[in-house]
């Protein structure tokens, strides 16, 4: 797609009829969690939308976020949106490599100064900048340089949004999130390990349609997708209310699809769209497949107790510590009782004198 074309012209050139374009807009509006009444507004905006330049930087990541996004092989709504942006730099997807690729990146950044979107996946090691480098440049320095002239940053995945797996105890590389380094640019955290693909494209679609960043929650995540917790949208909620829980993974309750709270489901404290949008184009999500939510879109989810320990068990230490407290209490008890008795004896002796 030519840079000077808008999205409407691009789709028409692809042979997409107006009817097809309306179908695309309906699906896109649904994807952006907009009400169906907004479809005409979306159509109007998308028809004249300009093609934004996107620079995608991958730092300390597993590439799962890119994989999640690109798993579709045939044109889907997601891939069309992806086509609509000008992806000027992406390690896994680009054909170029080496100095040529870096030069292309710098040229794209210069050409679109102040307007390009910077997408980041992976955390940034702050412990020793040598832990993760690209073309000899540390992640930290590359991020600072790229963020300087961008319009906004989309931190894709829990690693970029909150630190993710690298940040888990003991955090050997000193991994931090994008928002812990960049303080002067708008950052959209699209968390999840990985995020649901339509959530990533939903954010891009929002930007394409409205040219602004979507409404964010307290953790900087798009409120449209991260505004409800899994527990409140989970279809197994009636079982929770009735007190019907699966006790093990293969018992009667598990087979009947009962609530997985006792098996460690972190749904009540996790905010994501898994329960409504689901995964693989609405096929299923972990709870529907019989495994509790692990809370992958929340900060420090690797360190919030075991995946199979229920939320209400807490992380209160060990029984040994409590036995130690009991021993200390017993000692205090004996000591204070003996002291009291001694005082009493003394008082009695004084009285008798």
């Amino acid at each position, binding site marked *: 797609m030519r840079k000077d074309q808008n999205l409407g012209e691009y789709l028409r050139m692809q042979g*997409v*009829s*107006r*009817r*097809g374009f*309306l*179908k*695309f807009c*309906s*699906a896109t509006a*649904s*994807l952006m*969690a907009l*009400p*169906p*009444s907004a*479809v005409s507004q979306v159509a109007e905006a998308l028809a004249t939308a300009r093609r934004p330049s996107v620079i995608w930087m991958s730092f300390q990541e597993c590439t799962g976020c890119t994989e999640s996004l690109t798993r*579709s*092989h*045939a*044109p*889907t*709504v997601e891939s*069309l949106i992806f086509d609509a942006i000008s992806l000027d730099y992406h390690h896994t997807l680009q054909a170029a490599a080496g100095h040529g690729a870096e030069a292309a990146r710098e040229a794209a950044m210069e050409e679109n100064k102040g307007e390009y979107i910077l997408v980041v996946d992976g955390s940034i090691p702050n412990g020793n900048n040598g832990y993760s480098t690209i073309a000899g440049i540390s992640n930290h320095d590359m991020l600072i340089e790229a963020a300087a002239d961008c319009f906004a940053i989309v931190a894709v995945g829990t690693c970029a949004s909150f630190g993710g797996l690298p940040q888990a105890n003991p955090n050997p590389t000193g991994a931090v999130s994008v928002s812990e380094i960049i303080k002067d640019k708008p950052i959209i955290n699209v968390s999840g390990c990985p995020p649901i693909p339509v959530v990533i494209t939903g954010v891009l679609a929002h930007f394409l349609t409205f040219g602004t960043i979507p409404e964010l929650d307290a953790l900087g995540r798009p409120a449209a997708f991260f505004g409800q917790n899994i527990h409140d*949208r*989970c*279809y*197994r*909620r*009636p*079982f929770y209310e009735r007190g019907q829980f699966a006790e093990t993974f*293969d018992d009667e309750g598990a*087979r*009947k*699809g009962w609530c997985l709270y006792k098996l460690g489901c972190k749904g009540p404290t996790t905010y994501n769209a898994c*329960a*409504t*949008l689901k995964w693989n*184009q*609405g096929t*299923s999500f972990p709870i*529907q497949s019989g495994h509790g939510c692990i809370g992958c879109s929340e900060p420090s989810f690797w360190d919030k107790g075991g995946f199979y320990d229920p939320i209400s068990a807490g992380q209160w230490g060990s029984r040994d510590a409590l036995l130690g407290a009991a021993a200390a209490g017993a000692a205090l008890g004996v000591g204070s009782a003996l002291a009291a008795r001694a005082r009493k004896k003394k008082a009695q002796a004084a009285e008798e004198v």
Partner: protein
Amino acid sequence: MSSLETIPVTTEVATGNVEPLLHEIRHALKRLIEGKEGTVIDLKRLPLAPGEEERIAATLGTGEVRAEVDALGPTLIQETSYPGVWLITHKNVDDVVVARFVEVTYIPELLRSQQADIDAGINRLENELKN
């Protein structure tokens, strides 16, 4: 792997969202009759248990009109057994469902021929006739 298949799996679940949805459709029909504009309900935005979407489609049933649109993949527009209530299923070229709507209207927008397409079409016809 046959031992896995012998495990009976049942999901006797209900979100309780089917009845309210059908009521919402009823209210939308009332609004349509009163002369107000149509309503579109996005089925993907509702938490539905496995099987409930099928229950909704089964409850609504099939009516007199069934249209297959081929634009960016197949789209099925089915008037349900309740006239004015249309079930629209958008699929991509891989036959995967990308969106599902219930539209309460006299005729879904997607069935109408679009002005831009008519304009492009008349140009093509004129060119065809010239040659």
